[in-house]
């Protein structure tokens, strides 16, 4: 069992390793940059006509301009917040759902556990992206709705893993002991079992974050995101819509993708390091 002090200590050990330090560094960097943007460049990300349209990179505009004469560099700096925000919120919501669903499911009955397995099997077969698009269109375009859709899609897998872990923990001595002492079910589930699956839930939530970031940008790229949110996915959507691909305007297309790659890779590094530290095998 780990106390809160244990987790502060964990953060220290996390960044002492190059993998953890680089991963966390990259993520924090792209989360803070949107706020530092006004200090770095004088052009607001959505301001139209600050430069000549469709201009390759120059010293005035280090990443060139869009077809509306917007500054790509400014958009790139601002664009990391939306995917990271949606990703992290999805990770948190999914973890909460997993705690509320998987622990009781694993604790109370094998049948509920089997139901979870069935749900994950169904989710394996249903075409993921079309489903996300459909529910997303139904809910309407807003960032919180994107979080809800992505949570709805991603909770069954970690839930299945956690429920099966709970099922085996249930038979262990300390749970049986607590039961013999007359502890309530809620006390056993959240006081005894939860601390023992926290590591598993945390490392799974990182995988969910990576998934959510990639899918958030994909939905936005398809033009089904939030049109006004300054994210990397939207940048790519507008680039494609205004024919940047056909005219070979690489400076508009390359930066946002590299940003997504960097952030997702950052979370993967973090995941790798966490796996070493927490000693959990997720897959």
């Amino acid at each position, binding site marked *: 069992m780990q106390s809160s002090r244990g987790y502060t200590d964990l953060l220290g050990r996390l960044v002492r390793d190059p993998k953890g330090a680089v991963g966390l560094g990259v993520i924090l960097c792209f989360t803070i940059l949107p706020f530092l943007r006004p200090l770095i460049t004088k052009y607001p990300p959505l301001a139209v006509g600050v430069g000549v349209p469709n201009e390759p990179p120059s010293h005035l505009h280090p990443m060139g301009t869009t077809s509306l004469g917007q500054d790509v560099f400014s958009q790139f700096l601002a664009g990391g917040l939306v995917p990271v925000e949606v990703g992290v919120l999805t990770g948190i919501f999914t973890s909460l759902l997993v705690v509320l669903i998987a622990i009781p499911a694993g604790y109370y009955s094998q049948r509920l556990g089997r139901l979870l397995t069935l749900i994950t099997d169904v*989710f*394996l*077969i*249903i*075409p*993921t*992206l*079309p*489903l996300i*698009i*459909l*529910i997303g*269109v*139904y809910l*309407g375009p807003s960032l919180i709705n994107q979080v809800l859709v992505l949570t709805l899609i991603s909770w069954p897998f970690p839930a299945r893993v956690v429920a099966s872990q709970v099922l085996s923990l249930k038979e262990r001595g300390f749970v049986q002991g607590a039961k013999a002492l007359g502890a309530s079910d809620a006390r056993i589930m959240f006081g005894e079992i939860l601390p023992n699956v926290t590591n598993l839930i945390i490392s799974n939530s990182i995988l969910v974050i*990576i998934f959510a970031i*990639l*899918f958030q*940008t*994909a939905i936005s*790229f*398809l033009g*089904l995101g939030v049109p006004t949110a300054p994210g990397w996915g939207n940048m*790519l959507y507008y*680039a*494609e819509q205004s024919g940047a*691909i*056909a*005219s*070979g*305007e*690489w400076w508009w*297309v*390359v930066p*946002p*993708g590299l940003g*997504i*790659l960097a952030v*997702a*890779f950052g*979370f*993967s*590094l973090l995941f*790798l390091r966490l796996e070493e530290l927490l000693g959990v095998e997720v897959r």
Partner: protein
Amino acid sequence: MVLNFLIPRLMPGNPVSRFVNPLMSPAAQHQILEQFGLTKPLYVQFLLYLKGVFTGNFGLSFLYYPTPVSTLIVQRLPWTLFLTGTATVLAALIGMVLGLLAAWKRGKVDSAALYSSMALRSLPTFWLGLVLLILFGVTLKVFPTSGYFSTSLLTSGGGVLLFIQSLLYHSVLPIITLMAYLVGGNLLIMRASTLNTIREDYVTTLKAFGYDDGKIVYGHVLKNASLPMLTNIGIQMGYIVSGAVLVETVFSYPGMGLLVYQAVLARDYPTLQGSFFVLTLTTLVALLVVDLLYGLLDPRVRR
């Protein structure tokens, strides 16, 4: 199946707004709605849908009116199967060989493989497609930027061989794009399972008998270590369909993915229902094939 019916109907926006002109008389508007069966109560619509599923009749597409949805699917499905099938098989083979090498060689090769496969899995699929398009399609002009064969072949005639050549040529970039993510995942799984396999006693025994590495790896380790990867291919199915939507949109490749995307934008219920049903069915069949292959490779599960 029930989900398939309900989800498109819950979407906002009126599907027939593209056919119904507000200036039309209410009677004329009603007539069009009736033609599509949208005036009937919801449960009648559902029963008709159920009947359609079992008879392969999904109704007429709103978007490509009056083409039946089943005709659209029959036209589009082969291209998606071609793209995804080729990508899946190639990605499995490449991931298998690279993962095996990474685990066998250890050290620098291994960590290089580990980090590059992680990077491949962090790469947004559609963006990779866009970059490949700009680089090879627009700047270098080596590969075509859209479609699935040269339409000039239709007018000039050309032989079957030329046609096939054109097909392959148009599918190179989409397949590479789809493969990138899959190779990353396969490599990781194959590496882990090879590491487990080479620790087994029979490998040590073979080494002790003086068999050379190549014979041990390709004759014995490969087959046993590739079992978990086969399972992984089954898990990848959901991604492959999602990937197909993105890749087909980027490359304007006329498969099921593009059809679904266009149908969503146009609120084309019948096409969405039909496509969802067929995609789900295809995934099920693919999973069955994976299971059968598993039995073929591992006699222990046959029993």
